[in-house]
């Protein structure tokens, strides 16, 4: 089987399982909703303030919510030794990784699309800059979180206390991506600065870390 074929099959299987159970998306949605409500109590912002801090709020909420889904990525493959079966099969490891990463990307993008109206309502947001740029930032930023997150979930699944391990290793590495997402979003919402540098920065981050992930995934999958 080719890489594309395996990727598509695995991806469709994951999407179908998620469509039937809705485990990841439900827990992410509820978690993100809680974060939105708690932040609103914690900072109690006015409309003008919220435009300034919204970039941070939105991305911190999505980052925390994404961790919930990422932690479940590999857990279901451990049951019935699916991962071991995958390792002995001739299927290319990177196909599995890509399928998982794309699947998570899809889940988190759906989450963002569902949560965006809620942010607008709760924080009275109106974008001063062009909205299409927000979509570009969201797509690039989500991939930045998800590609490393999927990889680190594969790392942390092999450790003790795996649920807590993922954020511990994902957050430090993601700091530049988070900085870029937050600053780009704030620039667009307030319309005070150009987000161009941050968008390029996110694109570079995505390319570099996608390459590193694909390079190292086989070693991690076969780690004994």
């Amino acid at each position, binding site marked *: 089987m080719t890489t594309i074929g395996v990727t598509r099959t695995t991806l469709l299987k994951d999407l179908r399982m998620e469509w039937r159970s809705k485990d990841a998306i439900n827990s992410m949605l509820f978690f993100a909703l809680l974060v939105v409500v708690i932040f609103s109590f914690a900072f109690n912002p006015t409309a003008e303030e919220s435009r300034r801090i919204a970039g941070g709020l939105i991305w911190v909420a999505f980052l925390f919510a994404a961790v919930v889904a990422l932690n479940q990525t590999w857990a279901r493959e451990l049951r019935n030794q699916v991962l071991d079966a995958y390792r002995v099969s001739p299927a290319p490891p990177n196909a599995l990784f890509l399928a998982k990463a794309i699947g998570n990307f899809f889940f988190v993008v759906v989450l963002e699309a569902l949560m965006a109206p809620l942010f607008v309502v709760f924080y009275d947001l109106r974008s001063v800059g062009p909205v299409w740029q927000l979509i570009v930032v969201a797509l690039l930023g989500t991939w930045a979180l998800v590609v490393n997150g999927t990889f680190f979930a594969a*790392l942390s699944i092999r450790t003790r206390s795996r649920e807590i391990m993922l954020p511990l290793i994902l*957050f*430090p*590495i993601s*700091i*530049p991506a988070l900085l870029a997402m937050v600053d780009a979003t704030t620039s667009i919402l307030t319309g005070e600065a150009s987000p161009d540098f941050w968008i390029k*920065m996110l694109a570079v981050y995505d390319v*570099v870390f996608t390459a590193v992930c694909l390079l*190292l995934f086989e070693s991690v999958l076969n780690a004994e």
Partner: protein
Amino acid sequence: MKNLFIAFVVFTLALLAFSTYQALFVAPTEQTMGEVQRIFYYHVPSAWTAGVCFFVNFLASVAYLWKRNLASDGVAAASAEVGVTFCTIVLITGPIWARPVWGIWWTWDARLTTTLVLWLIYVSYLVLRRFSAGGQTQVLAAALAIFGFVDVPIVYMSIRWFRTQHPSPVMGGGENSGLDPAMLHAFFWNLAAFTCVGIVLMVVRYRLQMLEEKVEATHAAAALQGGSR
């Protein structure tokens, strides 16, 4: 080999004593900052040593993924721990100097923030090493080390841009511009001494790591033979 190492330790101690004397007594007192500037002789060499350690850690991690030998992993583990130690010294001595000179303990300037993120990344590396089980530790740690090393220039770039958009820190922080020759002298002695201390610590830690591996392997062999005591 062991005698050579002991000789090196003695040499390092002598060098450290001499460089401390240089830094505290020989180097002239800085005009505006006063005595607190002397912390510079410890702060910058520690940063340098931490940088060397993290670079060694990266090379050893690549070597491990390539050759799969325990020695490379031992070097990686040792260098990461020693690097985090020196990086901690940098993060502690920095604010001690900044408080009287800048008037603040900390500022989110590019260099400070990058050092802090670097420290966070390698602490997470040590946590991963501690929490992963058995024979998988080496591969997982090596993979994370490569991620961390690739991340550092990106962190620096992004934070520099982040800060150039906003007001610059209280003072430019150009501490290195035009150093007095006597100061430079003391500085290089300390740089040499700290590098040697770093090497000594890494060697000791490496040996400890190898011993731990040996103990674990012996236990595993004993358990396999059913000869548990």
